[in-house]
């Protein structure tokens, strides 16, 4: 929308009485929703009624009243505070920020165009005899433009050198190299931006189509994750800094032992003989003068299920895998008899590394040293074939299979076929996907596997904990 146009719409809205408290609250709620705060209609109504008893001229009380009705966790309260300050501010401030953003946007377009020109120059030769042209996304081009000069030069050099290597299908090869090294750089830069505060240069896509609201959403996105406590819990594990690892490790050990404690208690209560239901027993035995001749029992809980873990440890998963394994290792004491496997090109059984009384760091080192799978590329089909051939008997109708993977694999169709076989032999397949949900849509294998397993996003520690809690307790 052009600036002139926006002004028109705003004046129109104001004269139609739209610049009311209700109108602004509704817009603000839309912003919160975009930022991942779940606000229901009832809560919006609460927020409006809350203001009835508050002096509207007292700004800090108005803010507190809205917050009490709209933000329902510490994380949401943090997002609320940031968004509130940005949304309920003077028109001059808003205009200034808008101008700033427009300039930044223009600059970004310029950088992207330059990057595209630079890269296409190098790959032009192939482009000519290729049926399919190389297509890079705006995000990838942006990544290239933000890379340090030395990185750009090296990348161009590598591409250049590949020209002299005779291969069957140079187009596909070069495309793969280009895509994967740009993706690598993106992660690398995000990782380094995490602490430094430059993360704002790599914004998320997605817009409400309303410039004023988008403005607020963008600003909060960029700032929110700098809150030190929340960063680790809610940030993609892949992009955590090395310096975060000790904190992450102690956080995981805390969270997993909490969860393990809950699970053990639950099992303890449901184990043993069924309890007598006194109310029903009394009732039943009135005819015998209250002498409990016929006992009535409470319904027995379901039998304890068995859990089986299959974890992807290929290159794209290396960092995630470490954290996920540590988490599950923490649960092992409560789950007992957990079967675990790791895979990339092929699959290996790792159950014995997780036996009780073993030190996690030691187990991890032993596992990495003793395995041929760590950091390779992914072949889920081959891995599941090995699984079914050698360990198929571990599947029983009360086994819950957890698969942890980003679903980036060769031969996804063939893998899906085997997954279908597995599903027939077990209670359930839960897929914990370390890829952020917003990227699922573009990935065909993800969609394919979604139909066969219950898939949950688990790119952050908080999501991992939630998914495990939900499922382990559900079956407990």
């Amino acid at each position, binding site marked *: 929308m052009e600036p002139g146009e926006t002004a028109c719409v705003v004046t129109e809205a104001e004269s139609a009485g739209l610049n009311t408290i209700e109108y602004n609250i509704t817009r603000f709620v839309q912003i919160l929703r975009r930022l991942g705060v779940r606000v229901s209609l009832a809560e919006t109504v609460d927020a409006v009624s809350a203001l009835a008893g*508050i002096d509207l001229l007292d700004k800090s009380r108005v803010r*507190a009243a809205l917050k*009490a009705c709209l933000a329902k966790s510490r994380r949401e309260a943090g997002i609320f505070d940031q968004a509130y300050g940005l949304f309920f501010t003077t028109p001059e401030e808003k205009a200034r920020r808008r101008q700033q953003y427009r300039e930044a946007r223009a600059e970004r377009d310029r950088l992207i165009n330059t990057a595209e020109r630079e890269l296409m120059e190098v790959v032009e030769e192939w482009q000519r005899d290729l049926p399919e042209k190389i297509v890079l996304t705006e995000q990838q081009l942006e990544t290239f433009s933000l890379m340090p000069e030395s990185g750009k030069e090296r990348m161009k050099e590598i591409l250049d050198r590949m020209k002299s290597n005779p291969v069957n299908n140079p187009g596909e090869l070069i495309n793969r190299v280009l895509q994967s090294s740009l993706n690598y750089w993106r992660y690398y830069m995000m990782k380094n931006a995490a602490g430094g505060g430059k993360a704002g240069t790599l914004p998320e896509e997605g817009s409400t189509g309303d410039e004023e609201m988008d403005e607020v959403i963008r600003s909060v996105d960029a700032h929110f994750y700098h809150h030190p406590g929340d960063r680790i819990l809610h940030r993609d594990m892949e992009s955590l800094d090395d310096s975060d690892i000790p904190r992450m490790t102690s956080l995981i050990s805390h969270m997993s032992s909490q969860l393990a404690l809950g699970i053990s208690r639950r099992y303890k209560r449901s184990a043993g003989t069924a309890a007598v239901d006194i109310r029903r027993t*009394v009732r039943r035995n009135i005819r015998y003068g*209250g002498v409990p001749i016929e006992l009535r029992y409470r319904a027995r809980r379901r039998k304890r299920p068995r859990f089986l873990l299959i974890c992807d440890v290929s290159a794209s998963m290396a960092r995630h895998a470490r954290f996920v394994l540590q988490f599950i290792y923490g649960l092992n004491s409560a789950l007992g008899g957990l079967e675990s496997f790791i895979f990339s090109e092929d699959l290996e059984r790792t159950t014995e590394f997780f036996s009780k009384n073993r030190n996690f760091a030691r187990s991890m080192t032993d596992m990495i040293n003793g395995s041929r799978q760590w950091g390779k590329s992914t072949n889920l089909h081959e891995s599941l074939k090995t699984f079914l051939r050698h360990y198929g008997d571990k599947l029983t109708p009360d086994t819950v299979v957890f698969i942890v993977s980003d679903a980036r694999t060769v031969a996804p169709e063939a893998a899906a076929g085997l997954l279908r076989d597995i599903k027939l032999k077990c209670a359930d397949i839960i897929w914990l996907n370390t890829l952020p949900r917003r990227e699922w849509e573009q990935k065909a294998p993800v969609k394919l596997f979604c139909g066969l397993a219950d898939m949950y996003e688990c790119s952050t520690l908080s999501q991992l904990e939630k998914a495990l809690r939900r499922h382990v307790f559900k079956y407990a």
Partner: protein
Amino acid sequence: MDLNLDELKRAMEKEGYVSEDDLAVTVYLALTLKKPLLVEGAPGVGKTEIAKVLGRVFDTEVIRLQCYEGLDENKALYEWNYQRQLLKIQILKDSCPHEDIEKDLFDEEYLLERPLLKAIRSDRRVVLLIDEVDKVDEPFEAFLFELLSDFQVSIPELGTLEARQIPIVVLTSNGDRELSDGLKRRCVYLYIDYPDIDKEVRILQMKVPEAGERLNRQIAAAVNYIRSNLDLRKQPSIAESLDWARALVALHADVLTVENLTRTVNLLLKNRDDRLQVLDGGVLDEIMRHALGEKAGEKGHTHCHCHGNLPASSN
């Protein structure tokens, strides 16, 4: 009952609860919108105390349901008094057909009220404190959610019992587990963080005035420094600051020193590793520097006599 916001804030202070504007506004909304108040925060930041103070402010009973893993409806809502039922059966067994006995047995007379039922059957508006609700399991949470939505319970043998008075409901959670969206939506929400130095000084002054303002300020500054700069297993909460202040008073301390800190540190920090971390020479110096105020350095480490006007120390 009809307090306005400022009156409520003052009344809570009068009953010994220090509250800032945000907190008072949220409590006020829970009362006026007649919604449950959900308070989250680390242990010892003053969640449970809110319910107790509201009981005093409105001069009414506080009925507490302490939650724990495995809590069920029999312990939270009601149970039949089996002993009395059995006695009654014994008395009537020869004189009455058993269909009639059954009708008599499941009468309100034999009902044992547990906290939830007691709170909604009470003739006065009480405060219902559902403490540490994150400890219960999900099915019980769902049951609570229903109860808090319509304030009635159905007892198979008796039918539906409705609330005589909608109680003032305060739920607390240490955040061990995230509560369901449904429950959170029903509630007005308050997150209590550790207090800043000024608030903690006010709490200390209210609860341990005998320590004196100067020592209380030093305590608050030291605790604040520890919370924001050390990575501890268990952060000291307000409850621990209060214990620490009382211990220092018992030693007749009027200023904080390395010596009296060392002797009382086990009241502030319950974990052994945490204590070792704090007692490390360099760390101890930093704590003292913050506790006595930056200005202490300029004055050559003598006591500073600025009464309660130390700068809120920077982190």
